[in-house]
């Protein structure tokens, strides 16, 4: 009896205690949060917040230990939440709640009157709409606008997140920065740093970018209004971010709520969601978590080295490729200087007549490349004995022009030439060179002593090299020791190779699954190599690479990367001991070979001592581009301008548009909107309709057609505003898919601009089929061009059945076209009138095509008369939009090149049969243009590819094959919303340099044969 009563009391006691406590554990991508909530009062009685540095399990166990010590006798209804908690919950058997759901529960409990909640975490961004139709949204697979993004950006600015926050509060202006992805943002931020924009302004721009991404990318048009709750670490810790959100959303203090317990808020939600089934004491929980096994779900690769011997053989082999040194203090004779002014690092080298090293230096330029070079040159001169005669100096890299004008260097050369010169020194038979730097990957094949083809990485895979450095930093290690850890890792993890953002999230997953630092280090090295091999080089067999491979660039100094490369390609390669300095070394060799009278034009030791300059930021008002420019003024009054897209910014007269068909094309299309030849007033008092046509996608090239068509019907034709970044932002909130191409994204802005102009209806036809030009087996449009009208209709609330018409037509079939148009116009026009108007339309289109060909011929003739090199810039018609091509045509002009386009030349070529299915009208033109270029000695081809264009994954390979089969260079430029002309310029100049070299080689061959 007694026993029973005791039992009963215990039972009651237990019941009371257990009823009273909930434990929520939130394991995010960077932190572990724990909260205990009393069930009766819903009071938070305990909470903790710890960074886990990817040691998830240990951190959770430590947290539980604290809980156990504080509440040794309690039992908790427990739930785990968070992206990193998922695996842990599954393996330990503890109840799991999805974190958005957890947030939802907590909000309903504590902030029942909130309308929207915005939560930014380490890698995920979420929005919960609570009123007016609950909806919960999470960002897609690209991790833009999150804590990880902020970390990355802070690293780039060389500050920590807290410092970045403080900086941002002092900002004076905001620059537009691509926010959807860290890699892209980096491409926007780096030029700003290089141009010397104020750090405070850049910092503020970064926070603003996060806001834009959340407001437009995540909310996708749904208004964030009412009482808004802001949750998650970044929003709690960063004042600047909070300010940016509040200002952008126009909230007052009553409507913007920043909960005191924001960092642990989700764990509160988890606690409240805990189920009765999972009730444990802290000790039981510890046991459960401790016994959770690491999963074998992480893919693993092979170890880099089987054993120590293999490693030692490897080290010994690479030791052979070293340079000799000479003492700068005692050396007597001529010396040559090479400077490699890269986007993130600066390299200098001084060599002797026989290529011994007198002085070398490698340093991150921290946004002040010029200061660093000047400082180092002073140091170098100070070291120099009296016998050193610096005869000549060459500079290469991003900062080439700046250094040249500031320091009066003798030569400025393209990076590829510099690297090639340096590689030749180490292996005169070199036939393949790969350079992996911090930001870029460059490869070139060498044939007959000249560069035969160049492969550079695209924006998406940039930053691989520096990623390993950033990561090492995060692990509190220097990059060398971090890399060394990977050498003997037993089972390197597979981390994917798409981009650093995906790699970052793969690393975190691997860590959560218990992968060791060693395995991650090796995995990172191998990912970088895979990115280079699969995405940049794209060789299918090791044989394609060549026999004599030289690898260089700072990233190859890492033995694990070097080994991965050898393993991946199955080739033994040469890595010079100065791998990181090859650009500077090559430049120095170039200076040596080309020094004329042993008298350098460079600033002397004396002049350097007094060297000063002033830097000023300004906006160029030369044209509508409004480039942010930076003006450096030197002592002698000379100036250097950077950031400008054309010569106008540098105060020079721009090349006339006469050399650029792209400019002509765009203006020719815009001219079709002119009033004068249309809009005949209707006589019978009928309404005159105002029709808006977006100048983008299908209605870009077909603008002459539809413009003439509607004018013939007596309508007033209104064309959308010219594309620019602002126009894109205007429509960004209706963009449905992050990864669609930039032309499509711009389309949303075009539609907004037309609606704002008050047109009666916007016209965008749906055309599965383009016009049949009888050059391909079918004549489709790509799915985006064909059906974008459907997407616009579904995602822009301002559009409806009457103000947006997108009839389905196949322009090759007249009767059905007339019928479908008639139906879509809902009786506005008669079938007969439509038919007649189509005649006008088609003849206007034919006229346009004729003009393009005529102008092409003119440019061609004139270029040939003046012996100008010619480039056929091939892409889609809408790549003629200057916001899409970022002025690449102008850039080519400024390099002295005449620019033609694919539709101006394709008809001069025979039909082309290709290996792939040739079934898209626009793409068929490119194959023929390629064939045409191959038959012209003075022409090169450059293909423009929009990021995200799936079809170009197919055409690029095919066009490259056509070019290479004919012994021509293939150059591809990937374009997106980011504008990084610096890289494009290097690429184009490399191409030109290679062509010149090849021509020299050809002449040499011809002479030899004679």
């Amino acid at each position, binding site marked *: 009896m007694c026993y029973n009563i005791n039992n009963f009391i215990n039972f009651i006691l237990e019941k009371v205690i257990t009823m009273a406590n909930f434990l929520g554990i939130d394991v995010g991508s960077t932190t572990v949060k724990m909260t205990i909530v009393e069930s009766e009062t819903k009071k938070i009685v305990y909470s903790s917040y710890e960074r886990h540095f990817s040691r998830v399990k240990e951190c959770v166990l430590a947290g539980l230990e604290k809980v156990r010590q504080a509440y040794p006798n309690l039992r908790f209804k427990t739930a785990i939440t968070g*992206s*990193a908690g*998922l695996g842990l919950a599954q393996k330990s058997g503890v109840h*799991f709640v*999805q974190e958005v*759901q957890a947030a939802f529960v907590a909000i309903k409990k504590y902030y029942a009157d909130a309308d929207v909640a915005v939560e930014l975490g380490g890698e995920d961004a979420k929005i919960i709409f609570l009123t007016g139709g609950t909806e919960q949204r*999470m960002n*897609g*697979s690209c991790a833009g606008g999150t804590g990880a993004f902020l970390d990355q950006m802070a690293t780039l600015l060389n500050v920590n997140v807290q410092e970045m926050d403080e900086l941002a509060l002092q900002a004076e202006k905001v620059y537009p920065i691509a926010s959807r992805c860290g890699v892209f943002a980096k491409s926007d931020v780096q030029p700003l740093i290089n141009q010397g924009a104020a750090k405070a302004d850049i910092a503020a721009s970064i926070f603003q970018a996060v806001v834009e991404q959340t407001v437009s990318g995540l909310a996708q048009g749904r208004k964030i209004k009412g009482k808004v709750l802001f949750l998650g670490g970044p929003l709690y810790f960063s004042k600047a971010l909070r300010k940016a959100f509040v200002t952008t959303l126009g909230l007052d203090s009553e409507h913007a709520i920043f909960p005191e317990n924001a960092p642990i808020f989700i764990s509160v939600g988890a606690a409240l969601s805990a189920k009765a089934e999972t009730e444990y004491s802290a000790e039981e929980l510890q046991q459960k978590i401790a016994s959770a096994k690491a999963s074998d*779900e992480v*893919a693993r690769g092979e170890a880099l080295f089987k054993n120590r011997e293999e490693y030692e053989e490897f080290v010994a082999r690479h030791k052979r490729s070293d340079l000799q040194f000479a003492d700068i203090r005692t050396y007597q004779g001529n010396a040559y200087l090479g400077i490699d002014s890269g986007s993130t690092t600066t390299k200098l080298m001084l060599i002797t007549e026989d290529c011994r090293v007198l002085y070398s230096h490698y340093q991150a330029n921290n946004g002040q490349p010029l200061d660093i070079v000047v400082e180092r040159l002073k140091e170098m001169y100070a070291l120099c004995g009296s016998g050193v005669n610096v005869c000549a100096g060459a500079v290469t890299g991003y900062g080439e022009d700046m250094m040249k004008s500031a320091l009066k260097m003798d030569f400025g050369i393209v990076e590829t030439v510099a690297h090639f010169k340096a590689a030749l020194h180490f292996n005169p038979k070199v036939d393949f060179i790969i350079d992996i730097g911090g930001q870029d990957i460059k490869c070139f094949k060498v044939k007959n002593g000249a560069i035969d083809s160049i492969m550079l990485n695209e924006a998406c895979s940039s930053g691989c090299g520096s990623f390993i450095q950033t990561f090492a930093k995060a692990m509190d290690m220097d990059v060398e020791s971090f890399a060394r850890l990977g050498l003997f890792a037993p089972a390197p993890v597979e981390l*994917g*190779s*798409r981009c650093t953002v*995906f*790699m970052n999230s793969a690393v975190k*997953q691997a860590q959560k699954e218990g992968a060791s630092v060693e395995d991650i280090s090796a995995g990172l090295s191998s990912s970088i190599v895979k990115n280079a091999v*699969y*995405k940049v080089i794209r060789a*299918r*067999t090791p044989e394609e690479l060549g026999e004599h491979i030289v690898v260089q660039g700072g990233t190859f100094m890492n033995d694990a990367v070097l080994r991965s490369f050898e393993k991946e390609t199955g080739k033994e390669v040469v890595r010079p001991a100065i791998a990181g300095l090859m650009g500077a070394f090559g430049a120095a060799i170039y200076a040596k070979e080309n020094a004329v009278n042993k008298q350098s034009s460079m600033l002397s030791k004396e002049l350097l001592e007094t060297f000063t300059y002033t830097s000023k930021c300004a906006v160029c008002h030369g044209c509508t581009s409004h480039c942010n420019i930076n003006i450096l003024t030197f002592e002698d009054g000379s100036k250097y301008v950077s950031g400008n897209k054309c010569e106008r910014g540098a105060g020079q007269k721009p090349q006339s548009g006469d050399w650029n068909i792209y400019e002509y094309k765009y203006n020719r299309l815009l001219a079709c909107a002119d009033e004068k030849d249309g809009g005949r007033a209707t006589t019978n008092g009928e309404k005159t309709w105002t029709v808006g046509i977006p100048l983008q996608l299908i209605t870009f090239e077909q603008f002459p057609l539809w413009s003439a068509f509607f004018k013939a019907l007596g309508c007033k034709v209104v064309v959308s505003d010219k594309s620019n970044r602002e126009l894109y932002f205007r429509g960004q909130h209706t963009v*449905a*898919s992050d*990864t669609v191409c930039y032309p*499509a994204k711009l389309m949303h802005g075009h539609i907004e601009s037309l609606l704002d102009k008050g047109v009666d209806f916007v016209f965008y036809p*749906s055309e599965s089929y383009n016009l049949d030009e009888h050059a391909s087996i079918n004549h*489709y*449009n*790509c*799915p*985006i061009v*064909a*059906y974008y009208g*459907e*997407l616009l*209709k*579904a995602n822009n609330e301002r559009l409806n059945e009457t103000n947006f018409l997108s009839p*389905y037509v*196949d322009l090759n*079939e007249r*009767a*059905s076209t007339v019928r*479908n148009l008639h139906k879509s116009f809902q009786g506005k026009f008669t079938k007969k009138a439509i038919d007649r108007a189509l005649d006008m339309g088609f003849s206007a289109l034919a006229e346009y095509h004729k003009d393009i060909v005529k102008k092409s011929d003119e440019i061609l003739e004139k270029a040939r008369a003046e012996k100008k090199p010619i480039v056929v810039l091939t892409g889609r018609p809408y790549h003629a939009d200057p916001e899409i091509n970022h002025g690449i045509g102008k850039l080519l002009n400024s390099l002295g090149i005449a620019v033609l386009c694919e539709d101006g030349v394709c008809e001069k070529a*025979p*039909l*082309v*049969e*290709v*290996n792939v*299915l040739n*079934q*898209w009208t626009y793409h068929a033109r490119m194959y023929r243009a390629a064939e045409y270029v191959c038959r012209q000695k003075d022409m090169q081809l450059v293909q423009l590819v929009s990021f995200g264009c*799936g*079809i170009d*994954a*197919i055409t*690029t*390979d095919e066009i490259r094959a*056509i070019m290479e*089969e004919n012994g021509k260079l293939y150059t591809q430029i990937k374009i997106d919303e980011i504008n990084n002309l610096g890289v494009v310029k290097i690429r184009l100049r490399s191409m030109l340099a290679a062509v010149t070299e090849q021509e020299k080689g050809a002449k040499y061959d011809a002479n030899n044969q004679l």
Partner: protein
Amino acid sequence: MQTISYKKATPVFTEEMKSTYKILIPNMLPYHFEILCEIFRQKGYDIEVLTTEDRAIIDEALKHVHNDTCYPALCVIGQFIDALKSGKYDPDKTAVLITQSGGGCRASNYVPLLRRALSAEFPQVPVLSLNFSGLEKGNGLEVDLKTLLKLAYGIFYADAVMSLYNQCKPYEKIVGQTEQVRDECIAYVKSTLCGRKCRKYKTIVKKLLVAFSKIERTNEKKVKVGIVGEIYVKYSPLANSGLEKFLYAENCEPVVPALMDFVMYCIVNNINDAKLYNHNKLVAFAYNLVYKHLLKVQRKVIRMFQETGFEPPHDFEELRRLADKVLHQGVKMGEGWLIPAEMLALYESGTENIVCAQPFGCLPNHIVGKGAARAVKALHEDVNIVPIDYDPSATKVNQENRLKLMLATARERLEEKNAGKKI
């Protein structure tokens, strides 16, 4: 006009090879392909469906295919190369087969992409195309009208088995019974493919229904999750990281729309083109005959399902009607209007939770997946759609976490509903 050819010679699959070569096909739908292969086996082909799923597949693909190509192409091509390298098959006596849709999506380029990928290490392996658009003449399996009809019936039966399996498995009382019945049914269907027996669809479907209805099931209410999306990623466990398995483990009932829907979608597109653009009316007439017949069979199957108390396949005319609510049936590239149509059909048949599985950067899916989801939501506020991107570099945690969010909402609604009923 003069034509210049850059076409590389590729090995052709000759008549003699039929008896001496093994033909490999990728694994998209395990039961379907097993059944369809049987039809070709009876015609004398030696066909094998690849069921490999290891990581090496993706690694091979990344090495041999442009990395921006869509994920299904990477999976399929990688699987072939991985198989050819495994040593299990003699590359000199092996051919590979894939289907080719011939639409405006880049998927119709898988055959050339596969050829290019093989040319580096297995240039001798012929690539066969299974298509009905007249592409790759002389390099496909011979498909006469009789075979075509058999294939159609095969798809109906496989669809039935797949649907019944999914409806029974989550509720089975005796663990493993559903698998057993499924295997028996597949064996049975295969046995009917000889001769004309397979056309007796009423008898065959009846048998399948009876077999599955014998499985003892609980009355539990479980969360139903529909799977729509790009055709390969939607079905293939290799591409969607075992999505169905994941859903089973989460105690859900996966609802996977029939493959026949896609077949009929392709047929109807030809009919639509004729109607919209006056394209070849004669061809359309023939397609219309086929369509009418398939529809007749489908409707009978639907009735039989209903009579046995199982959730039937979607009526295709109904799907077309539903598509019209969201977008025009002119959207015919990739899975086109079928995706929003299936979303609506799932919703209306009580499956409010939907995964839209798509390859990262899939062009048609920008329009018909992510792009159309909003329009579907505008019609039904409580539809619970989650788009998931699949890609060699996408992490599983990222995908599963989004699925979990969808499931959390789904469970909450189910609880609300159950509670509502009790009151």
